[in-house]
């Protein structure tokens, strides 16, 4: 553990003066730790302190010090560990599903929601009848009811 920390510290110390020699902006350990998985614990490197993760950190630190780009470091790790070492799926083949499915899901949800709102807003309120409907009472009863109600006016 101490040896790994010492190597990391040394890599960072050497990295500082070497930064001036880089033809491109130097990538960061923090960024790569979020992009690379720990192969034995299936979390990102940032969340792991396993021996395998520590070795990968040392590997990355050395490559950063040597001015490797993010893409170069990721490619080297993929060549060694396979595609599974990257936290994000690739942009080709079956992996494309992982990128497109959420978008398709959100679009489908939006369409369903829009359809529901359209249906809800298009529904007509039951109209008030313009004229009183037939009460079903005979004329005599209706007249007596009207008289009775008139007393309360």
């Amino acid at each position, binding site marked *: 553990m101490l040896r790994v920390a010492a190597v990391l510290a040394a890599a960072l110390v050497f990295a500082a003066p070497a930064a001036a020699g880089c033809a491109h902006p130097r990538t960061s350990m923090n960024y790569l730790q979020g992009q690379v998985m720990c192969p034995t614990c299936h979390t990102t490197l940032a969340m792991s302190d396993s021996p395998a993760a520590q*070795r990968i950190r040392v590997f990355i630190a050395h490559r950063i010090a040597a001015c490797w780009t993010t893409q170069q470091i990721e490619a080297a790790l993929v060549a060694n560990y396979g*595609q599974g070492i990257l936290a994000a799926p690739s942009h080709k083949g079956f992996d494309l599903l992982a990128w497109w499915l959420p978008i398709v899901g959100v679009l489908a949800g939006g369409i*369903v929601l829009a359809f529901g709102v359209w249906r809800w807003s298009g529904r007509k309120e039951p109209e008030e009848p313009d004229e009183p409907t037939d009460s079903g009472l005979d004329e005599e009863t209706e007249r007596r009811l009207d008289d009775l109600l008139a007393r309360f006016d």
Partner: protein
Amino acid sequence: MTRRVKATGQVIALACVAGLLALLVWSVVHQKKAPEVGAMAPAFTLQRLDGPGRVSLASYRGKPVVLNFWASWCQPCKTEAAVLQRDWTTYRGRGVVFLGVDYHDLNSDARRFVSAHALTFPMLEDGSGSVTSRYGISQVPETYVLNRQGRVVAHLRGPITDPGFATDFQNAIAKAAA
């Protein structure tokens, strides 16, 4: 029209739920398990770590095979390495094959490990862990002993230097070679 749209929506929703359920069942059924004693060892072809070319397990059919899974970052693998090398020199004359499978490791670290421990038996690399997972390896080191037919005779979970394992290991090799 509306009823048809509603029914279609329900069918799609049900299909989605059924699909997810099928996926769950498939993943449970296809969980990688360690091959049991008596079962055929999963076939594989892997890149050599100690030289060019690929090696397939099938090419050793007819010989007893000791299949050791290790990694350079694994502490117990370091103590085990010397014993494996000693046993390899002892048994190679009797036709026993030793194969090392380096798992989830940086190739540069692994080569350094092989060189530092002066290991001379064939070493294979399984950086992605795809073969290792088919053997149900959960922690290294682990060792399988296979008989001439490629069936598992023993599976030792832990270093062969562990108390008790030394005898099991010798017995397993004797059984595999019989």
